[in-house]
């Protein structure tokens, strides 16, 4: 158990987008997200006076912006030097590492209030460049050198899942259909159109009238194969964005808000970077290990979770996540998704903000971006996408690479 309780007293993010932030730099996106977070603090916060340390996740700034040394860069552009400032990196879970570091700084008593966040400025490179940047999260020796891509690695996991559980690609399409619908309710999402709307629009151009979403996803040339069996709509987009949150100790949290989120549990796990070194392909050991640690610390069970943000960089990742987190039984995702269990009005709403699929996945910003959604859902400020039931416990699950890193955070009100 932590020495001191840790609270979230504010959260903010830029919109995640493939176009909106053209011409901006990562440091500017961090400032934009921070100013949003400042606005969210009920009783006000003075950055210079109150923030004691900065932890920022950014996966490959070297490739996108020819820039390392992101910690002090962020601090100086936020007017926070000479305070301690760090960059954290575990691929797509980089800002979850920032969150973990911030939590330990508060829980240990070293700091009373810290800024945690993340950013990725991906559209500086074309699709080839981004594909290569992302491939750096895989094992260079046994994967990227052989021609593996990230969609390819998750396609290998999908095939293994389909084979083991007799599931189909068609059943998996419930994931993008749900997440695009949720994204349509989120003004900060990269994609704000439902797949039904897209089917109509694309169909009109093709001169085809699609029967339903699945007919479109299956038969439109627009939904081209990226890495068989995964197609374009099985993949998250290339997004720019930043997200920030303020963590505070129990001593000071209520000076800033009467309704902070309380951290109930935290867990992180690691596994072999190379898929070929894993024990199994139909489950991520790092997720299971992180979840076990977080549930134990929180003293709760998966059934106590009211709303969850899980890592859906590719459709199959969402199925693996909900099963490895124990939200749904092993091998039962196809049935649960057919029944709409994870919809906003379902038993266990998952990725109410659109997930990585529709909200977008500016890699380094994703973990704290998820925290932004849980901040809103638990405080009842999620607007049109507010879950129907009373949300008391929210869970965040963020994966690095093809599962070599995983983070799980559980928050309560």
């Amino acid at each position, binding site marked *: 158990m932590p020495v001191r309780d840790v609270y979230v007293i504010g959260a903010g993010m830029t919109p995640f987008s493939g176009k909106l932030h053209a011409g901006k730099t990562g440091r500017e996106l961090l400032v934009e997200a921070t100013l949003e977070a400042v606005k969210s603090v009920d009783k006000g916060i003075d950055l210079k006076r109150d923030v004691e340390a900065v932890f920022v996740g950014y996966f490959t700034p070297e490739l996108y912006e020819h820039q390392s040394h992101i910690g002090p860069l962020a601090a100086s552009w936020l007017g926070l030097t000479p305070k301690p400032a760090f960059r954290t990196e575990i691929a797509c879970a980089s800002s979850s590492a920032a969150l973990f570091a911030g939590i330990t700084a508060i829980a240990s008593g070293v700091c009373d209030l810290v800024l945690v966040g993340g950013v990725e400025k991906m559209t500086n490179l074309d699709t*080839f460049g981004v594909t290569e940047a992302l491939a750096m999260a895989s094992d260079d020796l*046994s994967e*990227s*050198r052989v021609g593996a891509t990230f969609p390819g690695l998750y396609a290998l996991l999908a095939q293994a899942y389909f084979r083991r559980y007799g599931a189909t690609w068609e059943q998996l399409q419930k994931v993008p259909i749900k997440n695009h619908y949720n994204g349509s309710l989120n003004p900060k999402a990269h994609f704000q159109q439902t797949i039904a709307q897209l089917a109509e629009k694309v169909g009109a151009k093709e001169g085809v009238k699609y029967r339903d979403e699945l007919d479109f996803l299956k038969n439109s040339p627009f939904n*081209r194969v*990226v890495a068989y069996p995964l197609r374009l709509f099985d993949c998250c987009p290339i997004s720019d964005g930043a997200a920030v949150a303020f963590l505070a100790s129990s001593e000071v949290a209520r000076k800033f808000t009467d309704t902070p989120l309380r951290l109930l549990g935290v867990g992180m796990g690691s596994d072999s970077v190379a*898929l*070929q070194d894993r024990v199994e*392909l139909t489950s991520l050991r790092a997720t299971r290990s992180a979840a076990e640690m977080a549930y134990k610390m929180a003293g709760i069970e998966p059934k106590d979770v009211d709303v969850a943000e899980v890592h859906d960089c590719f459709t199959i990742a969402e199925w693996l996540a909900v099963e490895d987190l124990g939200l749904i039984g092993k091998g039962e995702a196809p049935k649960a998704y057919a029944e709409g269990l994870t919809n906003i009005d379902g038993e266990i709403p998952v990725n109410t903000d659109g997930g990585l699929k529709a909200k977008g996945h500016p890699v380094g910003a994703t973990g704290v971006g998820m925290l932004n959604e849980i901040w809103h859902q638990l405080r009842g400020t999620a607007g049109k996408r507010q879950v129907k039931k009373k949300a008391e416990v929210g869970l965040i699950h963020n994966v690095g690479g093809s599962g070599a890193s995983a983070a799980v955070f559980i928050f309560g009100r």
Partner: protein
Amino acid sequence: MAENLIALFKEELAKGKLLGSKCKNCGAAFIPPRKFCPHCGGEAEAFTFKGEGTIESFTVIHVAPKQFAGSAPYILALVRLDGGAMLMGRLQGFDPSKPEEIPLGGKVKFEPLKEKRGEAEEVIPSFKPV
């Protein structure tokens, strides 16, 4: 055990030999060779694989990184070798446009594959049906 295990692995790979390790503690096998078991952390010892195995999973890469774009679409497979280790490699002898004809669980055999990388050449693992 030599210290430059990966260099040795690459050298032998080009000659058609698959060097790896087996864990003295849990018996897990893996490629390339190394000192610690990635599963249980136990001490590992050298093991040479025969190169035959079955297709554990596969994908067809259509959107490839720039240096592989000329070869796309190509098939990548994770093969479970006799002896236990998994190895990723290019799958040859199948039509990438007919993935439904590629048999999961099908028997394949290892073969080193030379590929151009700009001016240089790289040897990577590949598999062919038995």
